[in-house]
C-alpha cells in the first residue's frame, strides 16, 4: 500500500477538482516526480476520468416532447372557467345575475299554484272567481293568479292575469294595460319588468331622503 503522506492523495483530488492551492500544487508536483507509486495512482485516476469523459452525448428519442406533453395532466375545466371569469368580469357578473334570477323566477312560476288576488276594495271574490262589479271603479292594479277575472265595471290601473282566464263584459273599461300570462317566458319577462320597475321606484323614492 501507499506509504506516502495522506496529504498527497488529498492534493491529487484537489488538483483533479481544479481547486488546489498554489503551494500545494508545487508540493504535489515535486512529490510525484520523486515517487513512482504516487505518479502511478495519479495517472490511473486521470485515465479513469478521461475514459468516462469520452461518453458521447445521447439525444432523447424522436417524439419525446410530444410524449411529455401528452402525459401532462389535462388542464382542469375549472381553470378554463376561472380564466374566462378573470378576463370578462362584467360579462361574468351579468351571466351570474341572469342565472340566479331566472332560477328564482322559474321556481316561483312552478311552485306558486295557489289562487291569489290583489286586495282592492269593491272586488267580489267567490271561490276562485274575482269580479269587478258593474258600475264600480277600482282605483289601482289588479293581479289575479290561478283564477278567473270577470270585469264588468271599470279598472283605473293595470290588469294582469297569471295562469287564469279573463272575461271582459261590454261595459268593462281598463285604463291601464291588460295582459294574460300563461307561458314560462311570459312569466319571466313579466318578472323582469316588475323587478326593474321596483328598482326604479325605490330609487326614486329614496332620492329625496338622500338630499
Amino acid at each position, binding site marked *: 500500500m501507499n506509504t506516502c503522506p495522506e496529504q498527497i492523495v488529498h492534493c491529487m*483530488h484537489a488538483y*483533479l*477538482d481544479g*481547486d488546489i492551492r498554489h503551494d500545494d500544487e508545487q508540493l504535489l508536483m515535486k512529490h510525484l516526480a520523486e515517487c513512482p507509486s504516487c505518479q502511478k*495512482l495519479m495517472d*490511473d*485516476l486521470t*485515465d*479513469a*476520468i478521461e*475514459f*468516462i*469523459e*469520452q*461518453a*458521447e*452525448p*445521447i*439525444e*432523447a*428519442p424522436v417524439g*419525446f*416532447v410530444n*410524449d*411529455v*406533453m401528452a*402525459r*401532462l*395532466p389535462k*388542464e382542469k375545466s375549472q*381553470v*378554463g372557467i376561472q*380564466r374566462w371569469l378573470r378576463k370578462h368580469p362584467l360579462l361574468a357578473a351579468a351571466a351570474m345575475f341572469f342565472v340566479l334570477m331566472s332560477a328564482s323566477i322559474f321556481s316561483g312560476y312552478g311552485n306558486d299554484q295557489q289562487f291569489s288576488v290583489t286586495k282592492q276594495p269593491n272586488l267580489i271574490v267567490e271561490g276562485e272567481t274575482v269580479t269587478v262589479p258593474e258600475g264600480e271603479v277600482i282605483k289601482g292594479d289588479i293581479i289575479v293568479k290561478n283564477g278567473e277575472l270577470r270585469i264588468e265595471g271599470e279598472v283605473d290601473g293595470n290588469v294582469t292575469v297569471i295562469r287564469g282566464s279573463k272575461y271582459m263584459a261590454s261595459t268593462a273599461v281598463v285604463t291601464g294595460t291588460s295582459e294574460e300570462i300563461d307561458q314560462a317566458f311570459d312569466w319571466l319577462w313579466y318578472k323582469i319588468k316588475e323587478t326593474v320597475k321596483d328598482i326604479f321606484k325605490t330609487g326614486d323614492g329614496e332620492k329625496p331622503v338622500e338630499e
Partner: protein
Amino acid sequence: MERRDIAMNQLINKRINEVIKGNQEAFEEIVTLFQHRLYHVCYRMLGNRQEAEDIAQEAFVRAYINIHTFDQKRKFSTWLFRIATNLCIDRIRKRKPDYYLDAEVPGTEGLTMYSQVASDVALPEEEVARMETEERIQYEIGRLSDKYRSVIILRYIEELPLQEISDILELPLGTVKTRVHRGRAALKKQMGNL
C-alpha cells in the same frame, strides 16, 4: 453568469410564468430546450433507454405540476436535474431492494461491500475487454453506487461545476467533493488497468 445564460433564464422564466397562468403549451418550449440533457443524465444513471425515457418524461411532468414552487431567482436546469436525479435514485433503489454492495462497511474508512464480496454485476475480464468504449463507460458507471454515480455523471459527463452539483443534489459542497474523490477512487479501482 454569462450574458447568454441571463437571456436564457429570462426566456425560461417568461415561459414558466405563462405555464403558471394556465397556458400548458408554453411548457412545450421548456421541454424542447432541456429534453436531451435530461434524457442523457437519466440514461447514464439508469443505463437503459426505456427506463431513461420513462423517468425523464416523469421528471418533466413533475416539474410541470410543481412549477409554482420553482424559485425563479435560481437556475431552472438545477431544479430540473434535481427532480430527475431523485427519480433515478428512487428507481435504482427499487431495483435492488435488499442491500447495496457498495454501502460502506461499518467501522471502516471508505471500504465498501464491493471490496469484500464479489459483485454479481462484475463480468469476466475478457468480456469487459471486448466491450466497445460506450458500452464499457456505461458498464463502469453502472457499477458505482448511486451516490457516487450521480456525482460522477454530473461532474464528468454533464461537466457541471462542483457548486452546481451541490445545488442539484442538495448536499454540502464538502460532501460532494468527498463523493467525487471516492467515486474517482472507485472507478480507478474497478477499472484496474485500461
